């Protein structure tokens, strides 16, 4: 890592150099996040010890209520690594939920057919955004802002009314539980609470691992890092940045649709206002998880820790019980600012060192 050779013999020089290399390495931000998560989680366990904050049930709750976010944050990390951004994900999730609700409830379409339809829609949505970003060189923010408005408007066109899902096949998937034989607690009424996770969480973790594997061990994944780091260098290396970017947005469209499906398994209904501010949660998860907004750096598994940090904070607000619902977005914005400023300082320090 070190470019300079330090000739002065110093006590513990090797350790110091190692630490410094680690500090300036890309995983430093992830490390901060992991420490932050452990710290606030332990704080929660201690502060709310009589509310079972520390039980396995409570931890699983965090996963159970966020299967969509886990996948979409992973996809967002990929987009950020490529040097882009996608703020249409929240509106897209609303649109997919509405598609499930409207076509299954009002048109009687089979649930499994709808899953395929939604995934294909996501692919097409990603394709259009990708072509506009990669081949027409329009700023990703403008493209996906338009995408956000398009999807939100389309949700209202499909149905202005809120629709609850009662479809049997879909609800069977939604309510499928995997129970754990340990880690539960006995509540005030003396009933033992078995910890469980929903099937959707397993599906989300499969998606997360898939994105991690693709980003870490495939040629496509490495080329995304290369293009995000420096488009010019990637071009000189013989990569086609336009094609890489296009594939990033197509893949992300697919992931957003998959995440939308998982989100719908949890929320089981469609409404125009669904998943409001979801894009911010996804971006925040990636940023907290160590993805640089300037591209080229990011860790898919870090985004999962980002999701955990966020949900723990939301849990804090819920456990407190007296705070208005506006607080969660304020706190989210504050954490986001903290990490963005940290990144900015970090990037500048590193630039000065080089």
């Amino acid at each position, binding site marked *: 890592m070190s470019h300079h050779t330090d000739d002065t013999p110093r006590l513990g020089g090797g350790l110091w150099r190692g630490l410094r290399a680690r500090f300036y390495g890309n995983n430093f931000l992830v490390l901060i996040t992991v420490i932050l998560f452990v710290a606030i989680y332990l704080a929660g366990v201690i502060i709310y010890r009589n509310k079972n904050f520390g039980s396995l049930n409570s931890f699983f709750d965090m996963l159970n209520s966020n299967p969509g976010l886990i996948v979409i944050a992973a996809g967002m990390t990929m987009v950020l690594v490529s040097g882009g951004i996608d703020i249409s994900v929240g509106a897209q999730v609303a649109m997919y939920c509405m598609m499930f609700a409207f076509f299954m409830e009002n048109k009687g379409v089979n649930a499994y057919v709808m899953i395929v339809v939604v995934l294909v829609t996501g692919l097409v949505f990603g394709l259009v955004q990708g072509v*506009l970003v990669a081949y027409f060189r329009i700023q990703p923010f403008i493209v996906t802002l338009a995408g956000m*408005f398009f999807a939100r408007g389309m949700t209202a066109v499909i149905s202005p009314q809120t629709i609850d899902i009662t479809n049997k096949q879909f609800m069977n998937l939604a309510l499928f539980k995997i129970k754990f034989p340990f880690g539960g607690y006995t509540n005030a009424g003396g009933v033992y609470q078995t910890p469980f996770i929903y099937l959707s969480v397993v599906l989300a973790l499969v998606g997360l691992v898939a994105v991690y594997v693709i980003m870490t061990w495939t040629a496509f994944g490495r080329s995304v890092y290369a293009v995000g780091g420096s488009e010019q260098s990637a071009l000189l290396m013989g990569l086609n940045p336009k094609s890489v970017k296009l594939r990033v947005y197509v893949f992300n469209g697919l992931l957003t649709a998959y995440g939308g499906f998982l989100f719908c398994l949890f929320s089981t209904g469609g409404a125009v206002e669904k998943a409001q501010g979801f894009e911010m949660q996804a971006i925040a998860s990636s940023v907290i998880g160590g993805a640089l907004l300037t591209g080229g750096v990011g860790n898919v598994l870090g985004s999962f820790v980002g999701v955990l940090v966020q949900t723990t904070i939301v849990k804090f607000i819920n456990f407190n019980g007296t705070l208005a619902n506006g607080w969660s977005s304020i706190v989210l914005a504050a954490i986001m600012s903290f990490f963005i400023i940290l990144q*900015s300082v970090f990037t500048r320090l590193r630039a000065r060192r080089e």
Partner: protein
Amino acid sequence: MSRAVKVIVTHRMFFPLVCLVLVLALNIIVTVTTTGSAGPFFQIVMTNGTLNGPLITILNRSSELVILALGMTIVVSASAGADISVGAVMALSGAVSVWLLGYGQLKTNNYHVLTYVVPLAVGLLVALVVGVICGVWNGFLVSKLKIQPMVATLILFTGGRGAAKVVSDGQIPKVDVPSYKWLGSFIQDSRGDNLIPIPTPIFVAAAMVIITVVVLRFTALGTTIQSVGINARASRIVGLKSSRVILMAFVFCGACAAIAGMIATSRIGGIDTNNCGKMLELDAILAVALGGNSLAGGKFSLSGSVIGAITIQTLTTVLYSINVTADQLPLYKAIVVVVIVVLQSPELRPMVRRGLAAVQGLGTRKVAER
């Protein structure tokens, strides 16, 4: 192509004006199909001492957007990005000013302000200050920490509305004092008679446009902003304080959002934090793009953006008249945005040329084969 035609077609106001004429034509067509003649669209009648008619309504309703578009034009020009927090800043500044106007009596009066706790002018000034503070925050992130404008403003985009909700306790506080509505409707005397027949928002928007144009035209500021937008580094080397110019652009945009927020809250006589300025950020960006301004920064035309804003309001009017609901509107606007940015894309021309060449190449190859 004769020279006169060429001069007209290549003029930078040509595209915005064509768009406005097209949308106006759409409105006339809809009016004709529903009422049988184009007359009602142009009708302006005097009732209860106020002027009424579709054209007045469009101008009146576009006021907030015109003001937002001014700020957005400057931000786009200086930073090559956009401020997507304007809608949230509108809601936040409105919420803070209503909270102050009814300080201490909101909860007891079921979220109605019956008398001002502080003078209205103070309430409005505080709203402006909130907008300026938001602008400073955005500008600080962009100019000092070098964060992309849209990521930086994303923070207030989410957090701002949340803060507005917290300030107004998640309620919709109403202001029941008549003078509160003057800014959003008509200025009245003590008996409730309208003094001026033209809606106040039109005056506010016009004043903002005139002030901005005069300041930018008659000082070096306009040129400075464009120069920073074209090349911030070169401008700094020339001796301009690029980062300060960008900071000021965001501050101005925040102030514009606050003024737009004052009008919006005055219009409904209270602050609805969920809907105040909702989805207006895209409208403002769209107004800038429709005005023939490049979203990549640099040269700008304020008059273009103003025409763009009025065009959007005209488009909204025609969409409402064919029974498109407010929730569905964004769909159509998104399509318009995409079409405009694709037309603006520098990649489009080579792409079309390559396409044409390929088609021609196909033709010549066939000839050669023969």
